[in-house]
Structure formats: structure tokens, C-alpha cells
């Protein structure tokens, strides 16, 4: 119950938000929202000792039991790390947004989306059912879409939101396909059960395809190359959103997914190479592109891409520990997994901090373009301090937490390069590329600090007088800055209580044999990683000073390439293709549409009857009386006469003859309900016809070419013949046992002696309910089509 409550509290509070907003107003609504992650954070922190002892808090409720889909929630060490980030950073971001967003914005929408995202994200990390996880996964994409498009009047926001949505949902759907393959192999959606079947699944033919599809989901969400292109455009979102979704939480959902499935896929050669190579390439490409950005948020976006690549590659390195052919001590490889989690936590602190710093600069100065900034140190001393702490931590300098995790990354890369068990050779490049990317990281960290806060002040390029941010706005980044330093001095507390439990989820068997929590030390002697850090500083400073001279390199292929053009051309091709396809059949003439419908009917139903040889007319049933025959004649007469009448009103009346005759047939066949309904419907339809009469075009003889007439005639006759044949065939068919016996008990089962209504309202009430909804939608459709159609002489919305 407790576990389910954790996920659903944000949703409940989001549902209650509009009335509360009306009650307490714009000024206080942010505090109401902030309470949600704060309460959850406190609740989760209280659980830490239990989780650290290896306990798992779980709850399960049947949701769609027939399909094996349960509301299964499971709080373990792995989910815990992410949940602490979601609620912890969530609290700080909510606090920050109170000061960041002007009350003139539609705060109600913003906070509902934010809470929706929070609940969805907690759902992702706590789900123990694949389908539940998928549902929440897509919900994070949707809430991210809504938040990126928060300033929807801007073109860039809409473009960025659409791009993020298309790419992440594409990945989500392929992940769903991967999940279904897992279900096909294991017969269960329960994640913990699937992980438990690791041995029996090895060598299954669908294992690798499932892995690829799931990785596609993880890579699109966690912005791995070449799917990273959506993140820079997502920076159109308000800065608190960028800090929260697009650096601390949502983009880490892919990391979570990879960590979650490491016990299943870890040890596979393809898993190792996909993660390591995707991660390393993303790391380098992100860092390289971050240096050339002029917009501080774009710079941070590329740096986030780069660091997510780093975490992804660390998970790849760590997965070697699960390989049976790994030489040496598997715990040494598992240390890379530990480094991944440690980096993940540190990244959320320093990157969240930097986003908030950039938000402050944007908020107080009115721009975040480094070409217009400079010399802000003396105006904004506190913000400057925060920027230094965040940047130096990101660059991997002591005494900040980023130093520890970057050293661990170097160590892991060196280890894996010297002894990974799989054939290849690319692994020797990992430490080199990682080191190069760190140099770039150092360069752009220096750019953030130097170009914004140091250097010459350029007051003529900014509109406002620079000044320090209000105190409230500095609280949230202040807490993060403090954490950056505290974690440096007390890393082992975090290691033991937060990362250790996650390690035992990721390496369940290994953690039983050995302690997977290494002792993190700031001073670890003059070893290779430390020397690499010295190299980073030296080369980084050199590159920064000479940046102006080698900047031209960005104009040379392949360094100027972005993957954007591929995305744009794919989007364009998709639009053009669907236009061609739609124009092919949307002719605007209802006669064509009827021809398509009946042709389709003829081909499918008629073809099926013909192919299976099912046509078997049965003329034996019941005597056909004089009444039936005479009404058939009347109907045939009316139908044929309709083709030759000269006025529309006659045709309408003849159509009425057909309808009322059908009602009379219902009377013959003792179906009073149907007869009644048919009569009333016929009456109402006739009234409708008379109302529409005014608008219908003049009734003129058909002037289409003979060929069209013949084709349409064949289709019409064919459809009529087929319906007749079909009816006769169905009469003689007794393949399945009749189910009408069940309904005969309606008085006993449903308390009603009218079987028809017992079926409609009780036995098959679900159908009826949906029909009611469809009817309602149709009514609304007619209303909107008419009420919203352009006035004569107004804008043509169709654009034709």
C-alpha cells in the first residue's frame, strides 16, 4: 500500500491542484506543489535503512489479470537511487520555480504537468510489471512534451516538443516490442520473475532482438548518439524543467532501464559493445559539440548528452562482471557499475546546480548568450560561486564530487581496456577517447565560468543593470552546491546506503559473494587516473587559451555535421508521403467513398467466401408467406424506382418506403424491439433529410463517363448479391454451438424478461456503453463541423 501511495500521490495532488489553485492563488500554489516531492523524499529517506539491509518493499494489485498486467510496485535499491533524485531534485526545482516563474504564466498548467511527470517518473522506477513500466514511460514522454511546449506561442518550443516526442515515443514503442518478446519467451510481465529466469533464457533466439529493441528505448530516452538531437531543442522549456527533466531525471530513465536489465543481458558480448560504444561515442560527440555553443543552455544540453554517454559506457564496462569468460576478479569490473551510479548522483547535483545558475543569469540579465555576457562576477558574487562549484565539479577537479567520479571513470576505462574478455580491439580506445572528452569537458566548463562571470563586462550588449538574484532563488542552487562539496568529503556514506543496495540489485549473485562497495578515497596515490586528470587540466587550459585559433575546425566536415538534417528530411519525407497517399483516395466525392467501401467489402468478404468455398445457400428454412413476398416486391420496386426518379424529394420518400418495409419485416419475424426502433429511426432520419434538403446540390442526371458508370454498377450489383448470398449462407451454417441458450435465462440472470434488453444492458453492457460513447462523439463531431466551419468569405481552413 505504502509503495503504491508513493507513485500515486503526485497524481492525486495533480488532480486536486485546480481547485486548490483557485483557493490559495498564484503566490502559494508553488509551495503546495513543493510539498509533494518533499513528503515523498522524507518517506523514502526513512526507507533507506531497510532497503540498505536488502529488504524490498513491494505491493501488487490485479489490474488486467487476464493479460498478466498487474499494478505491481517494487521499491528496491536501484529504484531508490532514482526516486531520491526525482523527489530530491524535484523539491529543489519546485522551490526554484516559485521564484523563477512569473505569476503571469499559467502556473496551474505548469504545476499539473510537473506533478504528472513526477508521478510517471516514480512509476517508471518502481514498476515491477513491464506493461506498467511502459505506461509510465510513455507518460513521461507526454508530460515532457507538455512541459517543453509550455511557451507554446514560440515556434521553437513547438518544434522542440514535437521532436522530443517523436524520438522518445519511437524508442518507447520499440521498447514495447522488446517487452512483448520477453513476454513471449517467459510468459510473464513481472520484471523480477523475468530477471530470475536468466539461466533458462540464455541462447533463446529472441533474446538479442529483444535486447536491441529495449536498448533503442533506453538510447532514445537517454539521448545517446545519434538520438541525442532532441535534447538541445528541448532546452526551449522553462529552465526549472530543463534542470529537472532534461538533466536530472527523465533523461536518466534510459540509464535506469539499462541497469534494470543488466542482470538479464549483462555478460552478453553484444550488450557490452552496444553500451560501451554508444556511450563512448556520445561522450565524445557531446563534449566536442558543447564547446562551440554560444547559448549557455545549449552548452549544458550537450554536456548532459556527453555525461549520459559516460554513464552508459560505465554500465557497459560494468556488465563484463557478469560474463563467465571474464578474466580476473569480477568485482573489479563491477566497480564500473558503482562508478556509473556515483557519477549519476553527482551529475544530478552539479548539472542541476549549473542549470539553476544559467536560469538565474537568464532571469536577471535577460540573455544567456555568452557573446553578450561577461564580467558578472562583481555583480553576482553568490551566483558566481555556485557556477564555479558546479563547473569545477563537472570538469573533475577537487574538492568537488565530480573529481571522485571522474577518477573512477578513468580507472574503469583503463581496467576494461586491459582485460575485457570479448574479441574486439576497440577497447584500447576507450580510455583515450574518454580522456579526450574530459579535456573537452574541462574546456567548456572554463567557458561557462570565464565567458559569463570573468572577462570584460559588456553592459552595452545587455538591456538590464546586472544584480544578484533574490535570496529565495539562491536557496535551491545553494543546497545543491553544498551537496557537491559534502559528497566529496563523505562519499562513502552515499556509497554504502544509496549505491550499495542498487549494486546488489544490478549484480544479485555477485553481491552475495563479495562486497561490491569500494572505499572511495579522494587521495589514491599517484596512479594513472590521477595523471590523466593532470593531463586534462594542462591540455584543457591550452585548448581554452587557443580556442579562437582552432575554432575553425567546426566548419570542416565531419565536425560540422549534426544529425538534425537527417531528422528533418525524414520528417519531410513522412509528411510528403502521407500527403500523396491521402490525396490518392480523398477525392471529396462521397460516391467514390461508397465505391471504395463496397469494393473493399466485396474483395474481403466475397473473396473469403469464394476462397474457403463457404458459399452454401440454404433455402430450406421456413415457409415464405404471401406477406413477405409482397413486401419484397414493394421494396425491390422502390429501390429500382429510386434510380430513375427526377426529384430528390421522391427519392427521399422512396428511401422511407425501404426503411418502413424493413420495420414491417421485423414485425413479421416477431422482433418488436427492432421494429419499434427501426420505425422511430426512420422517422427521425426523414426529418433530418428534410432539414438537409436545403443544402443538398441540385438533383441532376449523372454525367460521369460510361466506364465509371459500368464500374460503379458492377460494384453495386456485386455488393447487393454478396449481401444476399452471405445472408443465405449464414442461415445454413451451424459450425459453432448457438449461444442463445445462455440468454434464455435472462429472467434468472438479469431479472428482466426482455432478452434483447437484457443482452444490451447487462450481458453485453460493455458494447452498449461504448456505442453510447461513439454516438456522443458523433453528435459532438456534427456539432463542431457545423459550428466551427468557416463563415462564407472567411479564411479557408482547409487551405485549398
Amino acid at each position, binding site marked *: 500500500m505504502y509503495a503504491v501511495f508513493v507513485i500515486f500521490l503526485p497524481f492525486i495532488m495533480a488532480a486536486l491542484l485546480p481547485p486548490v489553485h483557485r483557493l490559495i492563488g498564484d503566490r502559494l500554489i508553488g509551495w503546495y506543489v513543493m510539498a509533494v516531492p518533499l513528503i515523498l523524499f522524507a518517506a523514502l529517506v526513512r526507507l533507506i535503512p531497510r532497503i540498505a539491509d536488502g529488504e524490498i518493499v513491494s505491493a501488487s494489485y490485479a489490474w488486467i489479470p487476464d493479460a498478466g498486467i498487474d499494478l505491481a510496485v517494487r521499491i528496491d535499491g536501484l529504484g531508490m537511487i532514482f526516486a531520491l533524485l526525482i523527489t530530491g531534485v524535484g523539491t529543489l526545482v519546485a522551490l526554484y520555480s516559485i521564484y523563477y516563474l512569473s505569476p503571469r504564466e499559467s502556473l496551474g498548467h505548469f504545476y499539473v504537468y510537473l506533478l504528472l511527470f513526477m508521478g510517471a517518473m516514480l512509476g517508471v522506477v518502481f514498476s515491477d510489471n513491464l506493461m506498467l513500466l511502459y505506461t509510465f514511460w510513455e507518460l513521461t514522454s507526454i508530460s515532457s512534451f507538455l512541459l517543453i511546449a509550455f511557451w507554446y506561442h514560440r515556434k521553437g518550443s513547438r518544434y522542440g516538443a514535437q521532436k522530443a516526442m517523436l524520438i522518445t515515443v519511437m524508442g518507447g514503442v520499440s521498447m514495447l516490442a522488446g517487452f512483448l518478446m520477453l513476454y513471449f519467451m517467459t510468459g510473464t510481465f513481472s520484471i523480477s520473475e523475468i530477471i530470475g529466469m536468466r539461466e533458462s533464457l540464455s541462447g533463446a533466439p529472441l533474446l538479442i532482438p529483444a535486447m536491441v529493441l529495449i536498448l533503442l528505448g533506453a538510447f532514445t530516452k537517454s539521448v545517446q548518439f545519434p538520438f541525442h538531437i532532441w535534447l538541445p531543442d528541448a532546452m526551449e522549456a522553462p529552465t526549472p524543467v530543463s534542470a529537472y527533466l532534461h538533466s536530472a531525471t527523465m533523461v536518466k530513465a534510459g540509464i535506469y532501464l539499462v541497469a534494470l536489465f543488466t542482470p538479464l543481458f549483462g555478460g552478453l558480448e553484444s550488450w557490452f559493445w552496444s553500451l560501451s560504444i554508444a556511450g563512448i561515442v556520445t561522450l565524445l560527440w557531446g563534449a566536442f559539440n558543447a564547446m562551440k555553443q554560444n547559448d549557455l543552455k545549449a552548452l549544458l544540453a550537450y554536456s548532459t548528452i556527453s555525461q549520459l554517454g559516460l554513464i552508459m559506457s560505465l554500465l557497459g564496462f560494468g556488465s563484463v562482471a557478469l560474463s563467465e569468460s571474464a578474466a580476473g576478479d569480477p568485482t573489479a569490473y563491477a566497480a564500473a557499475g558503482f562508478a556509473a551510479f556515483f557519477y549519476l548522483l553527482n551529475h544530478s547535483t552539479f548539472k542541476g546546480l549549473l542549470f539553476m545558475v544559467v536560469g538565474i543569469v537568464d532571469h536577471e540579465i535577460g540573455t544567456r548568450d555568452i557573446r553578450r555576457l561577461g564580467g558578472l562576477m562583481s555583480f553576482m558574487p553568490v551566483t558566481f560561486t555556485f557556477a564555479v562549484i558546479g563547473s569545477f565539479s563537472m570538469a573533475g577537479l577537487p574538492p568537488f564530487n565530480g573529481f571522485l567520479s571522474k577518477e573512477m571513470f578513468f580507472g574503469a576505462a583503463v581496467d576494461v581496456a586491459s582485460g575485457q574478455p570479448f574479441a574486439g580491439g576497440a577497447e584500447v580506445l576507450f580510455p583515450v577517447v574518454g580522456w579526450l572528452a574530459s579535456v573537452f569537458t574541462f574546456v567548456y566548463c572554463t567557458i561557462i565560468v570565464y565567458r559569463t562571470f570573468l572577462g570584460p563586462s559588456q553592459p552595452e550588449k545587455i538591456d538590464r543593470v546586472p544584480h544578484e538574484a533574490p535570496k529565495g532563488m539562491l536557496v535551491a542552487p545553494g543546497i545543491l552546491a553544498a551537496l557537491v562539496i559534502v559528497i566529496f568529503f563523505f562519499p562513502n556514506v552515499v556509497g554504502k546506503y544509496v549505491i550499495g543496495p542498487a549494486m546488489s540489485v544490478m549484480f544479485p549473485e555477485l553481491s552475495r559473494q563479495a562486497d561490491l562497495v569500494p572505499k572511495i578515497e579522494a587521495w589514491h596515490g599517484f596512479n594513472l587516473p590521477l595523471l590523466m586528470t593532470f593531463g586534462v587540466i594542462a591540455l584543457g587550459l591550452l585548448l581554452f587559451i587557443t580556442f579562437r585559433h582552432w575554432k575553425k575546425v567546426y566548419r570542416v566536415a565531419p565536425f560540422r555535421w549534426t544529425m538534425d538534417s537527417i531528422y528533418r528530411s525524414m520528417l519531410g519525407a513522412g509528411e510528403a508521403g502521407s500527403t500523396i497517399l491521402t490525396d490518392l483516395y480523398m477525392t471529396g466525392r462521397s460516391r467514390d467513398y461508397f465505391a471504395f467501401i463496397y469494393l473493399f467489402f466485396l474483395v474481403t468478404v466475397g473473396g473469403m467466401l469464394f476462397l474457403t468455398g463457404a458459399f452454401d445457400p440454404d433455402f430450406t428454412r421456413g415457409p415464405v408467406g404471401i406477406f413477405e413476398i409482397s413486401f419484397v416486391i414493394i421494396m425491390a420496386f422502390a429501390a429500382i424506382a429510386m434510380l430513375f426518379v427526377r426529384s430528390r424529394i421522391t427519392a427521399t420518400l422512396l428511401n422511407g418506403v425501404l426503411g418502413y418495409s424493413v420495420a414491417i419485416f421485423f414485425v413479421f419475424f416477431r422482433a418488436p424491439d427492432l421494429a419499434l426502433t427501426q420505425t*422511430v429511426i426512420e422517422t*427521425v432520419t426523414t426529418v433530418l433529410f428534410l432539414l438537409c434538403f*436545403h443544402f443538398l446540390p441540385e438533383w441532376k442526371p449523372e454525367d460521369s463517363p460510361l466506364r465509371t458508370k459500368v464500374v460503379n454498377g458492377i460494384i453495386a450489383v456485386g455488393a447487393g448479391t454478396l449481401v444476399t448470398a452471405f445472408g443465405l449462407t449464414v442461415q445454413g451454417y451451424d459450425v459453432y454451438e448457438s449461444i442463445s441458450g445462455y440468454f434464455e435465462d435472462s429472467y434468472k440472470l*438479469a*431479472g*428482466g424478461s*426482455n432478452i434483447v434488453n437484457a443482452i444490451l444492458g447487462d450481458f453485453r453492457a460493455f458494447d452498449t*456503453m461504448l456505442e*453510447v460513447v461513439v454516438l456522443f462523439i458523433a453528435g459532438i463531431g456534427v*456539432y463542431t463541423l457545423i459550428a466551427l466551419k468557416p463563415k462564407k468569405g472567411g479564411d479557408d481552413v482547409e487551405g485549398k
Partner: protein
Amino acid sequence: MKENDVILRTVTRAVVFIILTFGVELFLSGHHNPGGGFVGGLVLSSALVLLYVVFDIETVHQGVPFDFRKIAAFGAVISLLSGTGAAVLGKPFLTQGFGYFDLPIFGLTELATVTIFEAGVALTVIGTVVTIILSISKDV
């Protein structure tokens, strides 16, 4: 062109109530006899349509001041929600219950939850039919 429709108006005034009563009768009798929510709703809406055809929209609106779009939405919501009660009690969604109660005046009467469901159906039908006809006729 002004039409002389005195007869139609006079007849309508009396007939509308017969149709309305018939509609309610159909709705209530549906449990055991021909009728039910759908056809009951249709008959009721045809009475309204007759009113709209004979008198003009404004006149009818004074007597029947409802927003039929809202009625349609309300009906759809009722039929949706009528199923949730069963779900809360642990039965499959939309399971209907019935029982026999000894009520004053009526004597032993059968009460069934399906009536609520059918009421939702009827309201949706009325709302939708009148909405469609009104939107088309207002468009003239």
C-alpha cells in the same frame, strides 16, 4: 412564404404529450417488454424534434431550456459511471444487479441497476439527436 399550419400546431400541442408519455412508458417497460433506453430516448427526442419543426427554436427553448450537448455528455458519463460501482465492489466492470423490494404504494417491485445504465443511454440519445438536428437547422 407564410404557411398556414394552424392544424399542425393544434394537433402537435396534444400529440407531443402522448409521444412523451409513450417514450417514458417505452423506457420503463424495457426490462420485461419491448422498449428500453435507446428506443425510449429516440421517441422522446422525436417528440422534441416535432416541437422544433412546428414551432421555432426560440419558442421551444423557452419551454425546454436545456443545453442538449451537455445532456448528451451527462448521459454518456452516467452510463460510464454506472459500471464503476460493480468494479468497486470487486465484480467485473458494468455488472448489473437487481432485487425485489416491497415498496409502499407500488407493492412488490423489481429494482435493477440496469435502469441507471439505460437512463444514461436514453439521455445520450436525446442529447445527440437533438444536438445534430439543431446544429443542422441552425445552419440554414
